[in-house]
């Protein structure tokens, strides 16, 4: 009955939605190009890219991102595997633990970290290295909901038991099974979890800020206080980087129904 009639009501809301998405994006792009009065230029980008502090903080956050991904994978892959194979009864408990970071605001979490590791007996914040260890561990916890879920969904799609038994009957030990059999089968899920983890670490403000390490988030915040055009350029670069990561993720996991994520900020 109403099949070929254009639904103007729906059309209106879809257009409004598109405007809401694109206007801030366009506004940021436009603003970032107007540093030199009267003409468009890439001046703001050049200034940012030439700033040694930017390069230093970007390098710091990128290295932290990689460390977080590697540590997350090393901890969560065996855990998810073992739960699927041997300990299905602990799944509910583990799921609650992995969702906990969504229930604790990051600012509250860092408060807890400082109270716990900022004094004996677990003093970690005395040296830069100790603080970096603490921040990396914090990122692993913050990324846990994403990484765990990605691996859990991936593990559901393969027949863990048969693969394990086949490998074991050929003489493989547990580590060989994990590295040579399970890991290759989960590479898409792992890559998906890695991308969202990396994007999160790159954009994260609170841990670097409050534990006073030179991460990209605090650098951006400082730029926002002191400058006008450079923050817009930074926002554009941050958009681009995050969205490349998340776009790749969407591309990798297209078609899977359980893609929807919870977010926590």
């Amino acid at each position, binding site marked *: 009955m109403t099949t070929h009639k254009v639904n103007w009501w729906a059309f209106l809301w879809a257009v409004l*939605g598109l405007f809401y998405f694109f206007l801030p994006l366009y506004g940021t792009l436009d603003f970032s190009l107007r540093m030199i009065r009267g003409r468009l230029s890439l001046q703001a980008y050049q200034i940012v890219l030439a700033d040694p502090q930017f390069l230093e903080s970007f390098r710091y956050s990128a290295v932290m991102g990689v460390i977080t991904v590697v540590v997350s994978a090393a901890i969560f892959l*065996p*855990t998810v595997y073992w739960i699927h194979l041997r*300990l299905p009864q602990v799944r509910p408990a583990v799921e609650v633990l992995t969702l906990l970071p969504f229930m604790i605001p990051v600012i509250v979490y860092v408060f807890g970290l400082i109270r716990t590791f900022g004094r004996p007996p677990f003093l970690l914040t005395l040296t830069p290295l100790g603080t970096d260890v603490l921040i990396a561990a914090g990122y692993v916890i913050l990324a846990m909901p994403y990484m765990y879920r990605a691996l859990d969904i991936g593990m559901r799609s393969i027949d863990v038991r048969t693969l394990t038994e086949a490998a074991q*009957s050929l003489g493989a030990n547990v580590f060989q099974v994990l590295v040579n059999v399970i890991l290759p089968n989960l590479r898409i899920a792992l890559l998906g979890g890695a991308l969202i983890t990396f994007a999160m670490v790159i954009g994260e403000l609170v841990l670097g800020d409050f534990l006073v390490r030179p991460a990209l988030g605090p650098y*951006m915040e400082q730029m926002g206080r002191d400058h006008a055009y450079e923050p817009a350029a930074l926002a554009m670069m941050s958009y681009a980087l995050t969205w490349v990561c998340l*776009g790749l993720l969407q591309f990798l996991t297209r078609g899977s129904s359980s893609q*929807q*994520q919870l977010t926590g*900020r």
Partner: protein
Amino acid sequence: MAGSALAPSTERTRALRLGAWTKWLGIAPFFVFVLAFEILPSLNLFVGAFQDQDGRFTLANFLGLLDHFVLKSYMVSLQVSVITSVVGGLFGFMVAYAITVGQAPRWMRSILMTFSGLAANFGGVPLAFAFIATLGHTGFLTAIFRSLCFTNSAGVQNCPLDLYQNGFNLYTLTGLTLSYTYFQFPLMVLIIAPALESLRSEWREAAENLGASGAQYWRDVALPVLWPSLLGATLLLFASAFGAFATAEALTGGSIPLATILVSQQIRGDVLGNPNEGYAVAFGMVVIMSLCIALYIFLQQRTARWLKR
């Protein structure tokens, strides 16, 4: 043949040989890590909230929550979260409606779905920068609206759309609401679009056959099916706004007294004059967020029954 019969039995014997408790070793690294860096810090705040400065048990810190200063920041946080989750939720619902049941053009649908996946994860400092560049004092849209001027018969120039002349200010609750909506409504689209898609066309046809109008169909059929997802999604939006910090900090420099901002000021300089009261403030936030998320998960599971196709 032999393999399939043999494998389970070898596995069983191996499990027996290892003993029942050794299988727990497999998840020990996870539990140790989570215990050290998730449970311990959380527990530490929890315990701190119930201690006085000499480490004795007390409930006085929670009385501190009734302090005007603290209560106000909770109230502002709740206000921002309610407004943004309702505004973002309604907007997101309408957009989700448009791209599912409303049959908006296909290209719009795919762009909106893709962008929802991206924007729902977008926040923090860059989001604040984007809105400053768009609606700040010298922002792109601000400039456009300011330039729409005309001169009236008395020769006075009139700029009816000059935002900042008309009381708009991005660095306030309004601006915060606008910015949060940028990640709130896509989150709503992501959650509610599958639910809308699961509304079966037979239900609508059946309702129409029985003489129901469009409004009656929505009120008596669609919304009763959708309300757990709608409520659950709104709770999730509420929690994500309640816990948000970076955007507010970068946008307003901490001038809006949110609960997250209060906690940050407490970390930086003990504004409450009592560290333990800070733990109570933080603990209260965790309680509110946990209730929202737990209720969301409960409602999601309820909805799952309807959404099975």
